[in-house]
């Protein structure tokens, strides 16, 4: 078990953004966090990454308590959000070097990682280009690889494929599969219901609560739905 939470909650004033969520995630699992805008996905993710202090409840990530040891948690996780991924005014190489340095890699490590990463993405000829000049899909793939640079146990991805074209989106998911196969645990939020199918397990959030949690196949069976979109609609209407 690399992530486990127990009645984790976050309140902003009178508003409960995350309402007592309890779940566990195993190593190497691709765990999907689904829900409409404002359902509490991002807030939950921020608590698990040590960016937000929970209001109540427990959560441990990579064996550390997010409440008491947020710094230890941060060292063992990678994080990629849809908004901030990389510095647009730095080149690809500079970005890799920067994040390698932030996570305390030696310069030899950074060098080999840079090469490995450029190989994997086929970006050697673009290495000196500003990240801002890359197409969105490439940026996202690069950002994901950079989030893996310090070989974290868990990577959190907040709507990583939002607005990306169908082909690049699939290439991105292949990177996710690859990472999962090497033992990395991935926690992904998305609002593309079809992408939910790519996850091993899915939690559906509605109004801060986890309304359903299972494999995509079981969810479809339970809700007698032909696809995840229908599952979601039935859940949202039913509540």
């Amino acid at each position, binding site marked *: 078990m690399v992530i486990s939470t127990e009645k984790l909650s976050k309140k902003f004033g009178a508003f409960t953004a995350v309402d007592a969520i309890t779940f566990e995630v195993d190593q190497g699992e691709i765990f999907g966090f689904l829900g*409409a805008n*404002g359902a509490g996905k991002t807030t939950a993710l921020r608590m698990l990454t040590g960016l937000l202090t929970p209001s109540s409840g427990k959560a441990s990530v990579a064996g550390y308590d997010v409440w008491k040891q947020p710094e230890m948690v941060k060292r063992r996780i990678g994080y990629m959000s849809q908004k901030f991924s990389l510095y647009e005014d730095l080149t690809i190489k500079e970005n890799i070097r920067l994040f390698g340095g932030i996570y305390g890699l030696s310069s030899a490590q950074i060098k080999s990682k840079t090469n490995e990463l450029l190989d994997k993405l086929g970006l050697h000829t673009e290495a000196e280009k500003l990240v801002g000049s890359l197409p969105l899909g490439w940026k996202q793939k690069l950002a994901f690889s950079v989030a893996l640079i310090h070989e974290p146990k868990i990577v959190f991805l907040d709507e990583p494929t939002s607005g*990306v*074209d169908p082909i690049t989106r*699939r290439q991105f998911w*292949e990177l996710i*599969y690859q990472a*999962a196969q090497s033992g990395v645990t991935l926690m992904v939020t998305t609002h593309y219901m079809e992408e939910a199918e790519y996850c091993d397990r899915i939690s559906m959030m509605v109004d801060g609560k986890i309304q359903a949690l299972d494999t995509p*196949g079981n969810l479809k069976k339970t809700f007698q739905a032909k696809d995840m979109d229908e599952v979601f*609609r039935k859940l949202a209407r039913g509540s």
Partner: protein
Amino acid sequence: MSAVISIREISKSYGELKALHDTSFQVEEGAVFGLIGPDGAGKTTLFRILATLILPDTGQATIGGLDVVKDYRKLRLKLGYMPGRFSLYQDLTVEENLGFFASVFGTTIRKNYDLIAPIYSQIEPFKSRRAGALSGGMKQKLALCCALIHRPEVLLLDEPGTGVDPVSRQEFWEMLATLKNEGITILVSTPNMDEAALCNKVALIQHGKILAEDQPEGIIQSFKNPLWAVRSENMYQLIKDLRMYDGAADCYAFGEYARLKLHPAPVELTTGDNASGQRQTEAAIKTYLQQKNHQKIEMFPAKATIEDCFIDLVSA
């Protein structure tokens, strides 16, 4: 049926970036026409040109016979435009927003209430709430009401589904269907391929170029390759192995099954009418996968979707 919107070889560049590349298509009266493509494909640029907000570098476009460059003043009266981000005043209430846009167009809410009633009645209970405090779906409905309040002949909706949950998105498409009955021509853009089926006609756009333009069914029919849905216990490995399969043109994840696109083969070997050909193909693939140690193999012939067509057209 005559063309209400007619776009002829429109090009537009921003510096070195070619946002639109000789784009042409026509939208017929009373149609719901979908412009479908990912972010950065050029959708918003085209919408702004049609909304008379920016000028094309070359090419021509007319709406209702009025040129978007020369007759822009007259044209603006006939347009209802809803930009990508809902252009509402967050600090004004629902009613104040609607009232403002009505008076800007020299009309009142009451005059055109019948047109917006089916939509507005859903948000009317919250009419004294500030727009900023509405949910995504309600904002979208209010923005649509504001764009409709002057009874436009043509409605331009640029990515109306952004930031809206699937339930509201479905309701939104149902509303568009009712507007169509009022004789309003609708051009709507979306990055979601699965919304294509809700349009009368669609154009697929990528990198400023129109890849295909037809009725959704027509686009799907133009997909000629045999297509299979396959799954096994290890999906990632399955996709990698299927790509190496002799006869595979492409393989990619698609929902819970992987899509296997085969090279077009003689008729008897395709998924077409010939059942024995299909069985042969299935048996060959299964044998191949078993050799690769795949467990719990499941497969069946799949019908192409717009997304399959898009991927096909882009990789071609």
